[in-house]
């Protein structure tokens, strides 16, 4: 190939695709709302923390693909992402520990009814919702973290050109 042609393709590869970016900018909020719906509606329909977390993480990966890693890191830095990784697990095991402190066995959510103004049966429902939220946060942050590491060979700077 001629040098000029090579240069042209290189320039094009760095150009931003207006259609792709516009579509993603419109689509990503809806994907994220759908992910939150899947987490919150896991009580009554297929779904839950794992599935909703994956949808939330996928929306962020779509942002990385349509823009680049630096743009994505402006939205969520790797420090915040790593904190979210742990936060979900802390929520999950924390709810279990609260149940333990309130006199039940570990992860026996009906004991949450002693501190919440609901009966023990509804307390179990609320406990399930709480741990689904924790699972969702962890799965979302783990998806993003692994994707960023794999896509940029661990450097988090270039990659996905």
């Amino acid at each position, binding site marked *: 190939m001629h040098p000029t042609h090579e240069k042209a393709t290189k320039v094009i590869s760095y150009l931003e695709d207006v259609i792709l970016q516009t579509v993603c900018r419109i689509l990503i909020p809806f994907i994220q709302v759908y992910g939150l719906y899947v987490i919150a509606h896991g009580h009554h329909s297929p779904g839950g923390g794992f599935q909703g977390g994956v949808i939330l993480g996928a929306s962020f990966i779509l942002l990385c693909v349509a823009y680049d890693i630096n743009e994505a890191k402006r939205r969520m830095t790797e420090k915040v992402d790593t904190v979210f990784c742990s936060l979900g*697990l802390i929520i999950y095991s924390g709810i279990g520990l609260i149940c333990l402190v309130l006199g039940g066995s570990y992860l026996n959510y009906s004991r949450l009814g002693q501190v919440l103004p609901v009966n023990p049966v509804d307390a179990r429902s609320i406990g399930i919702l709480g*741990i689904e939220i924790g699972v969702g946060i962890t799965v979302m942050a*783990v998806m993003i973290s*692994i994707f960023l590491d794999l896509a940029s060979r*661990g450097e988090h700077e270039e990659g996905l050109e």
Partner: protein
Amino acid sequence: MKLLALFAVCATGVLLIYGTVDMPDWGDPHSPASVHVSPRYIEKAMEETAVGNIVTSVLADYRGYDTLGETVVIFTAAMACILLMRRRRK
């Protein structure tokens, strides 16, 4: 040596297939899995947990330890990925 390995693989396969002969049919209502805890989940999940989706109530409540373990596995995967791959220039 290769023939010995082939024989070992075939013998193991035959044993495993022989083991499936005793397994209950698909959806057999009298299989042990269907008569032990499943009826209790189906009958009591709604009144015990107030969650309409039985899968969610089993996953997050009755088998809460299991799901906690799954979440730990995913978390460990992320930590291993960070430890192995992340390179930071200072």
